[in-house]
């Protein structure tokens, strides 16, 4: 049934995403080494050398182990920031769309201002104030997510607020907050879910960008973006160091993109919302 709703590609995406999540959760248990264990006698070993399926990096750490543990941090960042963005943006959009008037204007201007600042600057600023860290990266990405979710939520709220059952609830004297929670929210789930799912791959890549620039997880924690940053100096001889983490990010983003497509096709086939 899922396959029918999601379509073949969407199902493939769902499977891929599930695999990625499983790897993130359970992969570290299967890791052959501690991802932070250095071995100065075996730096930059090629893949398939004894004991290291995917080789070692410039400090002798096992690449496979770091990829497995890296799945955890990259995925956690991507999912947590999406969740944060939704938690912040959804109420903003709903309140704005429901109340309209001056509240709407103010909230939407705030959202516009947020839109004018790329999440990158926010991440840099946070890093400069309280040091780069995974939480800071998540906040930066999540806040960067807010305008899109808020707009979608607002648009969807606008289209349901004048429907009969909502009018009826208002006439009955129900308070705005209750209406928003009970009537509006359940009926705008579709576009919100679509937007949320669609945002995940962007945040996964965004998290990788931030740790690539040194603004995310801190060493020695393994992270795909950070691994790419460190690999840059060694690409001439040890190409694999720069290839494997990139492939991982690509596969994760691809899976969630396919999943997002499937979800969108299932819930919003007319693509009214972008």
């Amino acid at each position: 049934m899922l396959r029918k709703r999601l379509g073949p590609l969407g199902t493939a995406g769902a499977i891929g995403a599930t695999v990625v999540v499983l790897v993130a959760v359970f992969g570290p248990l299967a890791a052959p080494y501690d991802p932070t264990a250095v071995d100065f006698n075996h730096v930059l070993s090629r893949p398939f050398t004894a004991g290291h399926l995917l080789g070692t990096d410039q400090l002798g750490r096992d690449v496979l182990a770091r990829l497995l543990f890296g799945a955890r941090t990259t995925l956690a960042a991507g999912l947590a920031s999406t969740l944060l963005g939704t938690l912040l943006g959804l109420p903003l959009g709903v309140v704005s769309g429901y109340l309209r008037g001056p509240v709407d204007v103010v909230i939407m201007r705030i959202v516009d201002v947020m839109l004018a600042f790329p999440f990158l600057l926010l991440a840099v600023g946070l890093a400069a104030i309280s040091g780069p860290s995974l939480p800071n990266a998540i906040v930066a990405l999540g806040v960067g997510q807010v305008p899109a979710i808020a707009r979608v939520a607002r648009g969807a709220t606008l289209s349901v607020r004048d429907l009969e059952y909502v009018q009826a609830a208002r006439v009955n004297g129900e308070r705005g907050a209750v209406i928003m929670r009970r009537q509006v929210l359940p009926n705008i789930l579709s576009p919100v879910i679509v937007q949320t799912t669609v945002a995940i791959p962007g945040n996964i890549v965004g998290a990788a960008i931030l740790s690539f620039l040194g603004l995310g997880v801190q060493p020695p924690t393994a992270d795909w973006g950070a691994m790419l940053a460190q690999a840059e100096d060694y690409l001439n001889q040890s190409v694999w160091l720069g290839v494997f983490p990139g492939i991982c990010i690509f596969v994760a983003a691809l899976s969630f993109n396919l999943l997002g497509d499937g979800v969108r096709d299932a819930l919003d086939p007319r693509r009214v919302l972008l």
Partner: protein
Amino acid sequence: MTLTRCSSAAGDPRKRAALRSTALTAIATAIPLALATACSSPSSGPAASSTTTTNATQGGTVTVGLPDAPDSLDPTTASTLVGRTVFANFCYKLYDIDSGLTIVPELAAALPQVSPDGLTYTIQLKPNVKFNDGTPLTAQAAVKTLNWYLTNPLSVRAPELHGVQTVTATGPLTVVIHLAKPFAPLTSILADRSGMILSQTQLTKMGNNFAKDPVCVGPFQFSSRPSLDTIILTKSPYFYDKQDVHLSKVIFQVVSDPSTMAADLESGEIQVADAVTPQNVSAIENNAQTAIQSQYSLGYQGLDFNVGNVHGSLNAPGVANNPFAKYPALRQAFEDTINRQQLNQVAFDGQYTPGCTPIPPNSPWAVSITCPGQDIAQAKALIKQTGLATPVHVTLMVDNTPLSVQIGTIIQAMAKPAGFDVALQPTEFTTALTKAEDGNFEMFQIGWSGRIDPDQNIYSDWYPKSGLNYTGANYANLDTLLTQARESTDQTARHTLYHQIVNVLENERNIIYLWYDKNILGLRKNVTGVQFFADGLVRLATASIG
């Protein structure tokens, strides 16, 4: 183990900016006072300059790649290393250094005459020298420049010239400097930016905007700065040795990514690459048209412990609230976990030099001691003696660039088996400096650009209430030694004093010195006559391109 050296596809421009602007700003200073013969120094590493041929090719343009952008082109306010490379080609100083790290006269005619009490310096200027706007170099110009450095509120040269009371001209080419207290490093200071003499006509015209069109004495003159990243110099028609200047144009171009710089050198887009990183050395050496010149530097890199910085480095030290401050033996334990050779090998492909003093081995002032090796057993024993529970949790602040983070990771890994749990705190550079000054850290991996005079590598770091005394050092016996060494005019006495000083530093371990960077220059083989000394500056006065 095959540790191969590779060029990278892309890098972090902040890395270079951070390393260069503070930690490695090598300001050349000179061996103090006039006793040059007594200070003959050992060779400063592999061939640093090629000889010029009298029939060198005339004309041509050389583009020099710089790792980051020079800041202000006004010596009054300049503070970057790359800026000094540019200055070295268009803004000559009273004194300079030669390949043996000896101070030699540049705009001065000879080394200064110093009064026996060390309070009066008399400097003769070279005759018939013109600024690059045609006006003559006179004692008046030198006096006005030095006073400008001393009194202009924006001047960052003033603290370097501290102790100078008056500067006067007692003849058309005679300058007299009077000090309040003897200050041995003064001549070395005049062999750096504080000794750069500015055209008075131009200074009067431009004032604080001198950087927009600076005019000094030099083989090349400032032509234009079309962007922050590009500086163009052209051959000066007024230079006193212009017959020995071969190039007609020099372009300084910022290429902030080290591997792009290496690639540009190999493709010929640039002809000189300043600040080549260890990972790019082999690619340049293996290319038939390029070569590497490697030079010792004047500075050091090490680990600062916050021992006494409780109210800020400029205020009176106290006792910091961390295990390293409370248990000095813990600092020794930490030093025992570090294998300096391995650190150099893994992080820098063996290209740099491990060490444990603030004075690099090529300096005539080098104090040679045996560096402690890695001794995990002793480290464990020392920790046990302190009674602290293992693992001992400590934090290490590093610059937020891949290389510094890597170094921190290596130190972290080395300290672990002994019972230290090191938490890395990669911190953006300016923030890190603020925190260091405020005493808001436990360990900080930081270096110093270095000067020739050992006083300038040690005093500001260890003397209480000095700006760079991040560790809050406060040792009365050391203070006495430092002051004596700074004021003494007796070379031999100074050598002895610095031996004693280094021994105290090794014992107290507020700073654990770890290695000395090398200045690595990349050149295309058809560029000759480039003078590259341990101060890391690229001098093109006698260079030519064939």
